[in-house]
C-alpha cells in the first residue's frame, strides 16, 4: 500500500496572493458602485442648486429608487436561481386592480382585500414556477404568456364591473386600516417635527401646515425596500437556502445530483418575485388611492435592468442583491435627477439605456481584465 503523500499545504508559485483592492474589484457589485458614484457626481455638478439634494429632493428620489428596489430584489434572487419573470409589470397592475375592486366595488375591508390579493398573486407566481419546472420551457416564454394574460384581465375586469379602467376611492376605505398603513403610512413623524422645530430642515411658511416640517416622515415604502434588500442579501449570502439558489442557477443538474431541491427553490423564487410585485402594487395603490389598468407597464424590464447593472449574469448562478439595490438607486436618481436638472424627461430612457450598456460592459470587461475569468 502506497502511503498517500501528505504535503503540508504549501503555496503554489503559480498562485499570487490577490491584493485587497483587486478582491474588491471583482465583486459583482462593481458596476453598480461605479455607476452610483458617477450618477451622483453628475447630478451634484449639474443639479446641485436645483433642490435635488435638500430634504424634499432626497425623499423624492429615494421613494422612486425604493420602488425599483422592491421589484429588483425579487428579480435578482430569481435571476440568480436561473429564471426570469416577465410578468412582474402586469402582476403590479393586476394586484393593484384586485385590491381596488375588492375594496371599492365589493366593499370589503382593506386588510382583507390586501391579504387576498397577496395570496392570489403569490399563487400565480407559484403557477408560473410550476409550469416552468414541469415543462422545462424557458421561463422567458412562460412568463411572457402571463405578462399578456394578467394585463388582459387587468384591463378587462374593471371595464366589465365598473365600466372604467381606473378605480379610485381606495383612500377613503383605507383610512384607519392598520394593514393599509403598513403599506401607505409614514414613520418617524416625531423626529421630523423635532428637526423642523430645531431648524435643521425647512418648515412650511404659510398655509394650513404652517410650522410643520416639509417632510413629515419616512414612507413605509422605503422601509419595505430596505427590509427586502437586507432580507435578500442575508438570505443569499448567509444561509443554506442562499447556497441552493446559487447552485440551482449555476448548474441545476449538478445541484440535483447532490440533493438540492432545485424545483422547489425555483418555484419559491417565482413566488417571492410575485410577492415583491404585490408589495410594490399595494404601496402604489395606497399612495395614489386608486388603481389603473396601465400600472406597472415595463416594470419587468426595469427590474431586470437594475439587477443586471448590479452585476448579475442573465444565465444565472451569479449576482448580488446589494448590486441590484444600487442598480435601482441609479435608476431612481437618474429618473428624478433629470427632472431636477431641467432636462426633457423623455430623455430618461436614453440615459437609462446608456447607463445599462455602460455598467454591463464595465462589469464584464473589468472582470476579464483583472481575473481572466469568463
Amino acid at each position, binding site marked *: 500500500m*502506497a502511503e*498517500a503523500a*501528505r504535503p503540508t499545504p*504549501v503555496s503554489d508559485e503559480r498562485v499570487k496572493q490577490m491584493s485587497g483592492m483587486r478582491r474588491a474589484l471583482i465583486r459583482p457589485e462593481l458596476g453598480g458602485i461605479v455607476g452610483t458614484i458617477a450618477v451622483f457626481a453628475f447630478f451634484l455638478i449639474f443639479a446641485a442648486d436645483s433642490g435635488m439634494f435638500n430634504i424634499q429632493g432626497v425623499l423624492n428620489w429615494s421613494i422612486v429608487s425604493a420602488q425599483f428596489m422592491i421589484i429588483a430584489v425579487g428579480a435578482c434572487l430569481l435571476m440568480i436561481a436561473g429564471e426570469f419573470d416577465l410578468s412582474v409589470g402586469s402582476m403590479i397592475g393586476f394586484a393593484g386592480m384586485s385590491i381596488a375592486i375588492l375594496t371599492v366595488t365589493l366593499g370589503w375591508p382593506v386588510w382583507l382585500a390586501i391579504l387576498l390579493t397577496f395570496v392570489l398573486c403569490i399563487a400565480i407566481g407559484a403557477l408560473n414556477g410550476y409550469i416552468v419546472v414541469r415543462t422545462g420551457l424557458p421561463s422567458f416564454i412562460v412568463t411572457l404568456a402571463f405578462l399578456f394574460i394578467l394585463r388582459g384581465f387587468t384591463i378587462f375586469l374593471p371595464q366589465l364591473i365598473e365600466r372604467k379602467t381606473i378605480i379610485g376611492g381606495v383612500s377613503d376605505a383605507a383610512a384607519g386600516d392598520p394593514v393599509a398603513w403598513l403599506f401607505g403610512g409614514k414613520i418617524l413623524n416625531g423626529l421630523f417635527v423635532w428637526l423642523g422645530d430645531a431648524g435643521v430642515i425647512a418648515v412650511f411658511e404659510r398655509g394650513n401646515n404652517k410650522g410643520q416640517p416639509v417632510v413629515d416622515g419616512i414612507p413605509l415604502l422605503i422601509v419595505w425596500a430596505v427590509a427586502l434588500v437586507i432580507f435578500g442579501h442575508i*438570505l443569499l449570502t448567509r444561509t443554506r437556502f442562499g*447556497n441552493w439558489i446559487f447552485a440551482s442557477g449555476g448548474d441545476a443538474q449538478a445541484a440535483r445530483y447532490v*440533493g438540492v431541491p432545485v424545483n422547489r427553490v425555483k418555484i419559491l423564487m417565482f413566488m417571492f418575485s410575485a410577492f415583491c410585485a404585490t408589495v410594490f402594487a399595494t404601496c402604489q395603490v395606497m399612495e395614489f388611492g386608486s388603481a389603473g389598468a396601465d400600472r406597472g407597464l415595463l416594470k419587468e424590464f426595469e427590474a431586470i435592468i437594475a439587477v443586471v447593472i448590479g452585476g448579475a449574469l442573465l444565465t444565472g*448562478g451569479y449576482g448580488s442583491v446589494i448590486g441590484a439595490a444600487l442598480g435601482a438607486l441609479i435608476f431612481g436618481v437618474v429618473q428624478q435627477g433629470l427632472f431636477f436638472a431641467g432636462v426633457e424627461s423623455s430623455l430618461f430612457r436614453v440615459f437609462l439605456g446608456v447607463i445599462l450598456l455602460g455598467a454591463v460592459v464595465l462589469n464584464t470587461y473589468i472582470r476579464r481584465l483583472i481575473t481572466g475569468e*469568463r
Partner: protein
Amino acid sequence: MSDIILETRGLTKRYGGVHALEDANFTLRRGEHIAVVGDNGAGKSTFVRQITAVEQRTAGEVFFDGQAVNFAGPLEARESGIETVFQNLALADDLDVPSNLYLGREIIKFNLGPFSILDRKAMRVATQKALDTTAVRIPNLSNPIRNMSGGQRQCVAIARAAAFASKLIIMDEPTAALGVQETGQVENIIRGLKARGVPLILISHNLRQVFDLVDRIVVFRRGRIVASLRREETDGNDIVSYITGVKGGEGARA
C-alpha cells in the same frame, strides 16, 4: 450482519423504448472494490443512476446494507451512506470549494429551516482537513470552482465523496479528464479508501487502472451484465473480449 453491502436483483431501466439496463444482478461485499467496465452505452452510468436514485428504476430491487431500499432521491441515498462522483462532477460553478463540498448538507449555526445561517468558518476548516487527508492541493479555497482547472475540479468532487463516504462510494470515470499526476493522486485516494475498508464501485475505461486497483471486474454489454471476474482469474485480453462480445452470451450473473 450480512457480508453484502449492496445487491441488485433484476434491476431494469427503460427510457421509452430504449432498454438501457436489463435484469442486472449485482453484489458488492463489504470492503470490496469493484470495477464496472464496458463500451459506451453499455449501461454503466445508467446502472449507477438507479442505485443513487438520480433516476427511478423501471423494475427490480436494490438491497443496501441488508435492507430493501427505495430512495426517493439522491439526497436520501447520500444520507444512508452512498457517495457518488458523477461523470459531470455535480459541482456548482459559482460557489467556492467549501460550499460545494457541503452543498445539500451545509454546516449551520442554528437551525431555522431554509433560513439556517451557514457556518462558513467551520465548513472551511473541515474542507481544508478533508483535502489534506486526500492529499489534494487547492491553492485558494474561496475561489469559485469556475476558475479551476479540470484536475482541481475533479479533485474537489472526489474529495467530497471520500470525505463523506461512510458505507459505499461510487465513481463514474473519475480520471477521464485528468493528467498523469492528478490520475496518480486519485488512485492514491482510492487506495486510501481500500485501506479504510470503504467499498467502491469504479466505472472506468482504463484497464491498466482497473487491474491496479480493484478486486473484481464486472463487464456490461448492451445493457446487461455479461461477466463478473476476480482480478486474479482474468487478464486484459479476456476482459476486452467480454466487452466487445467475443465472449459471453446472455444471462451471465454477477
